[in-house]
């Protein structure tokens, strides 16, 4: 084994440094092998597939997959279902991002003080985040079904048709569900960011007699701006990943595709209908969509 010589200078004989390299690489090689097999290769494969006429063949059959250029992309972009799904993600973000940012920042600043039952509150907010989506969706289905508790409480005000089968309300309800489910994580993120806001700012605002709302808007909100950028990006990625909720909560993206997500379409087009090349093209477009939203968000939040 390589042991550095006493005194600090390292002997650099070729054999020795080769041995060290080999040992270090040996330690990281299982990790690198997995990166190659489950990330790098599929990543390239996805892009390649989206430019070829790829179809499912028997495992050992030798088949040609002809290059088709942008044909899969053309098929995806002219598909009204896909356009609707991307539009649905936009609706999701319009509801989810302000709710997530607003509620998590307000709750985090409320938590960021010496308070009784502080750890109880933290636990309460974190609980949905660590619980399985499938379990949570089961409860929401029941609460928001047409004869469910929410409609019983609303009485005359209950929407018609009910939440999950209502074209206007299905996607916003999913956005609220995801905001509720993930809020605990974002509260913790903001709590960490709030530690970096200088206390002196609040103290001098206090001597000036500033109100709580004023301090929140003028000190807290700008003070945690980098965290807000991160929250918006993570919320965007979560929205782009949406699958379980439209698949289960609204019975496969219903009603009439109003809550379908791009990943749900990737599953339907790629695996149910056997067009993995089209699904791969949707995947590439989805990643470009996330990148674009993230860049716009960075530009907007870093403006001043």
């Amino acid at each position: 084994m390589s042991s550095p010589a006493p005194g600090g200078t390292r002997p650099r004989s070729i054999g020795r440094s080769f041995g060290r390299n080999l040992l270090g690489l040996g330690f990281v090689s299982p990790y690198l092998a997995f990166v190659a097999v489950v990330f790098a290769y599929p990543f390239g494969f996805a892009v390649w597939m989206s430019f070829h006429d790829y179809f499912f063949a028997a495992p050992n059959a030798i088949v040609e997959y002809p290059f088709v250029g942008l044909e899969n992309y053309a098929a995806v972009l002219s598909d009204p279902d896909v356009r609707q799904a991307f539009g649905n993600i936009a609706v999701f973000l319009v509801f989810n991002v302000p709710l997530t940012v607003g509620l998590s920042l307000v709750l985090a600043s409320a938590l960021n003080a010496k308070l009784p039952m502080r750890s109880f509150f933290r636990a309460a907010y974190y609980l949905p985040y660590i619980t399985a989506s499938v379990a949570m969706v089961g409860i929401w289905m029941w609460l928001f079904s047409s004869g469910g508790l929410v409609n019983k409480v609303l009485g005359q005000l209950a929407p018609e048709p009910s939440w999950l089968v209502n074209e206007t309300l299905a996607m916003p309800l999913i956005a609220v569900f995801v905001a509720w489910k993930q809020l605990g994580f974002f509260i913790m993120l903001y709590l960490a960011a709030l530690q970096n806001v200088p206390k002196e700012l609040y103290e001098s605002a206090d001597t000036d007699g500033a109100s709580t709302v004023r301090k929140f808007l003028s000190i807290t909100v700008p003070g945690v701006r980098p965290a807000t950028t991160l929250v918006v990006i993570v919320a965007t990625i979560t929205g782009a990943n949406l699958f379980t909720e439209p698949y289960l909560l609204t019975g496969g993206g219903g009603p009439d595709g109003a809550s379908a997500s791009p990943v749900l379409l990737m599953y339907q087009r790629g695996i149910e209908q056997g067009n993995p090349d089209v699904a791969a093209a949707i995947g590439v477009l989805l990643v470009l969509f996330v990148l674009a939203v993230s860049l716009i968000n960075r530009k907007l939040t870093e403006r001043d």
Partner: protein
Amino acid sequence: MRSAASTTRRIPRLLVLLAGACAFLFPFYSMVLGSLQAEPSSEPSDVLPDPSGLTLGNYTAINDRVPLLRAVANSGIFTGGVILCTVVFGLLAGYALAQMHFRGRGAVFGTVLLVQLVPFQLLMIPLYVMIVRSYGLADTYLGIILPFAINSTAVFVFRQFFMQLPRELFESARIDGASELAIMLRIATPLCKPALLTTVLLTFIGPWNEFLWPFLVTKDADMQPLAVALANYISNVAGRAANPYGAILAGACVLAAPAVALFLAFQRRFVSTDLGSGIKG
């Protein structure tokens, strides 16, 4: 005077927090309550139930439709396999990146950061083609575990912890002739027990709650983790059965219980931990 002002300021704060906590905990409360009612009640007047009417019938009902024990065992094997791979590969790579010098170390570290940016949606279709179609690993534990076997966040967390340990500790062991593997296992890892526990806990909730990937690779009911089995029950039965929600809520309780129990037992480790680890979503 200062303290009087701060108490009056605390009251609206507490009210906001209490209202929030109710909104967060109520679905859990109604899940447990509904699972114990013969027919889960949606009547607002039944929010406080009659204790004599409670029953475990829904749990036997879901067990008749979904082999609960088998599904829990599948979830356990999936989760255990992912945790094992995450810890073994994470410790090795994290240790090498923190304490060993080798050519290409910077590139490997760059890879660790880069992998966290690759979105799973893009990989879903090619991984399905490879694992299910080419390798024939559908309905196998290996096929379910494989895409989750590496966890770059864990590598990163272990590297950060190993970097904080004093160098002298390792140098003297090396002079005594200990092998790097022995140093890692006998000196570095025991000192990182807190990081290890945190990583195990955080890794647990990922595969235990995961739905999409195991849903794609398991068609055989005997191989499905609980999340998939319950989802299939929800999507196949919910529309037709007269009162499916009792069984769904009972299944949801079983699915939620282990993660919630671990969270309540180790709350501080979940909350005060490296927040970046949840970011990949």
